[in-house]
C-alpha cells in the first residue's frame, strides 16, 4: 500500500475550528485512503482525518504544526488535496 505524508502549519487565525474541521473531513472522506492527522508539540496526538470529532479534539490553533498522513491507493492525492486546504486557509482570509 502506498503511503504519503506532508507537514503543514495551521495558518488561519481561528485554528481548526468547526467549519474548517468539517471541510477537512468532507474532503478526506472523498478518498479511499485512511487519513491520519498527527499533532506534534508538547501534547502530541493523532486524529482520524475522517472523524470530525477527533479532528476537533486536536484543538489545532493557529501556528500548530501538523502532519497529514494517508495510507491507501490514492494516498498521495489525498495528502496533496488536504494540505491545499490548509494552504488556502480554508478560504477564510482575503
Amino acid at each position, binding site marked *: 500500500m502506498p503511503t504519503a505524508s506532508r507537514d503543514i502549519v495551521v495558518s488561519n487565525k*481561528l*485554528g481548526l*475550528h*468547526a*467549519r474548517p*474541521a*468539517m471541510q477537512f*473531513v*468532507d474532503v478526506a472522506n472523498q478518498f479511499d485512503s485512511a487519513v491520519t492527522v498527527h499533532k506534534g508539540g508538547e501534547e502530541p496526538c493523532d486524529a*482520524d482525518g*475522517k*472523524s*470530525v*470529532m*477527533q479532528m*476537533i*479534539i486536536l*484543538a489545532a*490553533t493557529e501556528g500548530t504544526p501538523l502532519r497529514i498522513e494517508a495510507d491507501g491507493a490514492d494516498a498521495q492525492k489525498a495528502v496533496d488535496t488536504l494540505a491545499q486546504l490548509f494552504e488556502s486557509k480554508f478560504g477564510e482570509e482575503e
Partner: protein
Amino acid sequence: MEIKKGIGVSPGVVISTAVVLDAEDLVIPRRRIEADLVPAEVERLGKAVAEGVVDLTKLRDDVTVQHGKEIGGIFDFHLGLLRDRKLQGDIVNEIKTNLTTAEYAVSTVMRHLANKFLAMPDRYLAERVKDIHDIEKSVLRKLIGQKHEDLLHLTQDVVVIAHDLLPSQTAALDRTRVKGFATDVGGRTSHTAIVARAMGIPAVVGLGNITSEVSGGDTVIIDGGRGVVIVNPDEEQRVEHLEAERKHVRMEKDLEALATLAAQTKDGFSLSLQANIEFPEDIDDALGHGAEGIGLYRTEFLYLASDHEPSEQDHYDAYVDAMRRLGGRPMVIRTLDLGADKYTQAKAANPERNPFLGDRSIRMCLHDIPMFKRQLRAIMRASVLGDVRIMFPMICTLMELRQAKMVLNDVLEELEDEGVPFRRDIPIGMMVEVPSAVVMANQFAKEVNFFSIGTNDLIQYTLAVDRTNERVAGLFCPGHPAVLSFIRDVIRAGARNSISVSLCGEMAGDPLYTLLLLGLGLTIFSMNGPDVPEVKKIIRSTTMEHARHVARRVMSFDSERQVMHFLREETRKIIPEAF
C-alpha cells in the same frame, strides 16, 4: 434501594416496572442491561441517530433557505458530528463493554467529549461544547421518544413516572396496563391525582425529582396511602408491601359490599351519589362502585385524546356509548372546559400570560360558535336516548349564560328544521365555580334547572391559589371559611328557587367533608367512582341531625385549621382506618 416521600393522592399499593416519561432535563441514570439486549440497544441507537440526521438535515436546509448559507452552515458541524463513525463507534463500545442502555451510553460518551472541549485552551473551540450538548439532547430525545410510543402498546403492567402528567399523555395511556403514577410535582387536586383516583390506581405526587432517580425498567413500589415510593425495593420491603396491598384490596372489598346499598342516613334521608368521568369506559367501574349516575362528564378528553378536533359524530358516538353503559341512569354532560391547561397553551399561537383568567372554557366556546355547536348538536341528538342533561362551565355573568342558551336554541331550531328528534325540555345547568356566580346565585337560579358547584376552580378563584404551583398549593384548602360560606350560599339559593344543587369537585369525594356537606343540605355528590363507597359509608353511619350539628359548628369557626381539625375528629369516629 431508595425511599422517597411525597403526597399520596390516590390510595393503594402497587409493585411494578417503571416507565419514565418526559425527562425534559434529560438526566439519564445509569442502568445495566443483560448481554442479550446489546444488539437491540445498538439498533435503537442507530435508529435514533438516523432520525436525528433526517431532522437536522431538514433544519439545516430550512435555515439555509431562510437565513443563507452562512447560518445554515452552523448545522453542518452538528450533522458531521452526528454522522461521525468514530463517535458512534465509541457509543456502541460503551453499550457493549459496560452493558448499559443506549441513553446512558450516549450521555456518557457525549459528556466525556464535552469535557475534552472544555479543557481546550482555545476559547473559541471550548465554546463548541454547546454543540455537543445540542447533539446529545437531540439523540436522547429520539431515544426517549421511541419509548413514548411504546406507552400505547404496553405488553406488561407498568407504573408511570413523570415530571407532571399532561392531560394529553393520560389520554393516550393504555389504561389496562398502567397500575400507578409517581410524579415530581403536583398536589391533591392535580390532573395526575384526578386521573389516578378515577382509574382507582395508587398515585404519589410532589416527589421532587423522582424522574431522575428512577430509570425505565426499575422495580418500583408506589404506596398511595402512605405517600411513599420505593425504588428497587429489597425483599423485606417487597413482602411488607405485598401484604399492605392485600390489606388494601380487602378494605376495598369491604367497601364494595356497600355498592348495592342505598345512600341513606340512619334517620332516613336519601342522597344521590354520582360519578365524575372522563371517558365512557369509566362508567362501568363507577357503577361497580355504586354510583347512581354521572354527575359530571368531562368532555374535554374527547379533544385531548386525539390529534384532531372531534367531529359531531365523534361526540355523538361517545355520548351514545356512555348512555348505553348507563342503562337509563342520569348523565350530566359538561360542555367543553378547555383553555387554561398546558395542552391548549402549548398549542396556542400566542400563549396567554394569565390563562386561568383568560380565554378558557365557556369563553372559548363562545368565541368559536361552530365548534360549540358541533358539541351541542351531538348532545341534543343523543338526548332522546336517555336521561341527558347539559351543563355550561365557568359562567361568570348572566350574559354569558344567556348567550350559551341562545346558541343552544339555534341548535334546536336547526335540528327541528332538519327533522332530527331531540328532547326539548332537556335540563340545562351551570357550574358555579367563580365567586361572581356564587354572589349572584339567586339571579342565576331563575335561569337554569340546576347548579353544580365546581370546588376545584371555586377554591382557586376564591383564595387566589394555583393548586398546581407546589410553592402555594398548601394554601389551597376546601375547608377555608370563605369557601365554605360560598358553598352554603349556593345550596341555599338552590333551595330557595327549587332547583337541585350538586357538588362535583374533589371535595365531594373526600370523606373528610361528607358530614359537613350533608349538614349544609347538599343532596347530590358527584365524585370519582372509587370514592363512592367511603362517602356512602359515612352517610349510612350518621344522622341528618348530627350532620347539621357538625355543619353549624364548622360554620362558626374562623380558620381553616379549626375546620380541618374538627372535621378530622368527627370523621375519625366513623372511619378510624382512613385517618
